[in-house]
């Protein structure tokens, strides 16, 4: 870390800004660090770290992203439970917040769920899609808050969300078409001679099932890459200031970096919404495909 302090553009140091950690960064004035208490941490991990499999230690360590996820979850509950009280009472929707939230809810319902799944089935999946959208959005937006971070910049988070979507897709597909029917429906119907079918159908089945898996893995990686890359570029832009400190270039680099970082922040704000929308839209699409095969 001593070396990193001397070179602000050291990748390790940069990457540290977008990574999960066991403490919150704070301004130097306030001590620089806020350690998260670790009441559960095990001395001997259940699963040791395995760099070859990209696995970190499984030892019940509490991290920044966990805290931020809880912040997002509590925030959502505090926003939407009162909204539900207002909405269920009837009458006109009043106030900016109510209209803002209802506009987003209706957008997900009318522009995402219903076109992708079909009017008849869509409403059953709305609670899942709404929760998914707002949870991802809240995590993304927390990444724009100073000293916080976006939990959606960790594969563990996006991967688990994608896994939930995958379980949702397979579960609804199997409950709709039957356990066997769902997997059979993965192979599109083709008029093939019997001999050809024996060879082709298992291969097509394999490709389709792999495709189903890959679609969900990509779901996780897309969100991860978008959130991580944006924050990384932001960190690099600001690191230029520290890198040029002490030289005459600093006077030129600083305004350019600040302007660039501000513009990038706005882009990130857009990306936060866009990626939450894409994640939700693709999940809805996959559910739609599972419910109505072909």
């Amino acid at each position, binding site marked *: 870390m001593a070396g990193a302090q001397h070179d602000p553009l050291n990748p390790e140091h940069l990457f540290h800004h977008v990574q999960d950690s066991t403490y919150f960064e704070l301004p130097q004035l306030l001590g620089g660090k806020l350690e998260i208490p670790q009441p559960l941490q095990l001395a001997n991990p259940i699963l040791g770290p395995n760099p070859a499999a990209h696995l970190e230690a499984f030892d019940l360590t509490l991290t920044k992203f966990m805290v931020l996820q809880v912040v997002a979850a509590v925030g959502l509950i505090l926003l939407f439970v009162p909204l539900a009280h207002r909405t269920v009472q009837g009458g006109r929707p009043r106030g900016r917040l109510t209209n803002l939230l209802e506009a987003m809810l209706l957008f997900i319902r009318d522009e995402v769920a219903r076109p992708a799944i079909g009017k008849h089935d869509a409403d059953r999946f709305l609670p899942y899609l709404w929760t998914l959208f707002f949870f991802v959005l809240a995590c993304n937006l927390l990444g724009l808050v100073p000293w916080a971070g976006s939990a959606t910049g960790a594969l563990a988070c996006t991967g688990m969300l994608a896994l939930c979507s995958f379980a949702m897709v397979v579960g609804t597909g199997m409950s709709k078409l039957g356990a066997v029917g769902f997997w059979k429906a993965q192979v599109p119907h083709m008029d093939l001679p019997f001999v050809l079918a024996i060879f082709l159908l298992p291969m097509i089945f394999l490709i389709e099932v792999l495709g189903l898996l890959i679609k969900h893995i990509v779901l996780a990686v897309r969100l*991860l890459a978008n959130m991580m890359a944006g924050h990384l570029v932001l960190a690099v832009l600001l690191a230029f200031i520290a890198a040029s400190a002490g030289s005459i270039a600093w006077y030129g680099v600083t305004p350019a970096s600040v302007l660039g970082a501000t513009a990038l922040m706005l882009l990130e704000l857009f990306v936060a919404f866009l990626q939450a929308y894409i994640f939700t839209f693709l999940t809805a699409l996959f559910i739609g495909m599972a419910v109505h095969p072909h």
Partner: protein
Amino acid sequence: MNKLLFERVLFLGGFTLALLLLPRVAAAADPLAVDVDLAIWTAIVFLVTLAVLWKFAWGPICEGLERREQAIADNIATAENAAEEARKLTAEYEAKLAGAADEVRKVMEEARRDAEYTSQQIVEKAQAKAAEEGNRMLREVETAKDAALKEISDSAADLAVDLAGQIVGRELSVDDHSRLIEEAQSDFLSVQADGD
């Protein structure tokens, strides 16, 4: 246009920067590292949020939105019905109004005709009355004239008889007397008739 260009430059710049940095970053730290703790934590937080929101937020919101949409649709339908009703009523009243004007015209016409008839009647009656009165007067005058003439003829006969009696004296018999009177009378009547 400028804004779009700016955004593109920014995006491309950021993208290039990220591409250049990614291998260095990947070498320094693993962006695909999975923290099992975080994964499990994510699942728990996400599913608990889903459950809480499903029970306390999404259910009521779904119901509320559905109800509001229904209410708006109902209100629009009601308003359309009311407008249709109003249009029908207006047409009805307009027709009635036109009918009323016709009736008024008819009543006025009738009243005018009645008045004309009545006035004509009055004039006719007055004329008839006047004519009758005139006739009656004429008849009365005639009667009075006849009576006067008769009286004159009677008294003239009497006078003539008296005078003749005084002239002729007793030489005339009762028969002669009567004959003479009749002669004189018929003469007188014939004279009178000639005179008429």
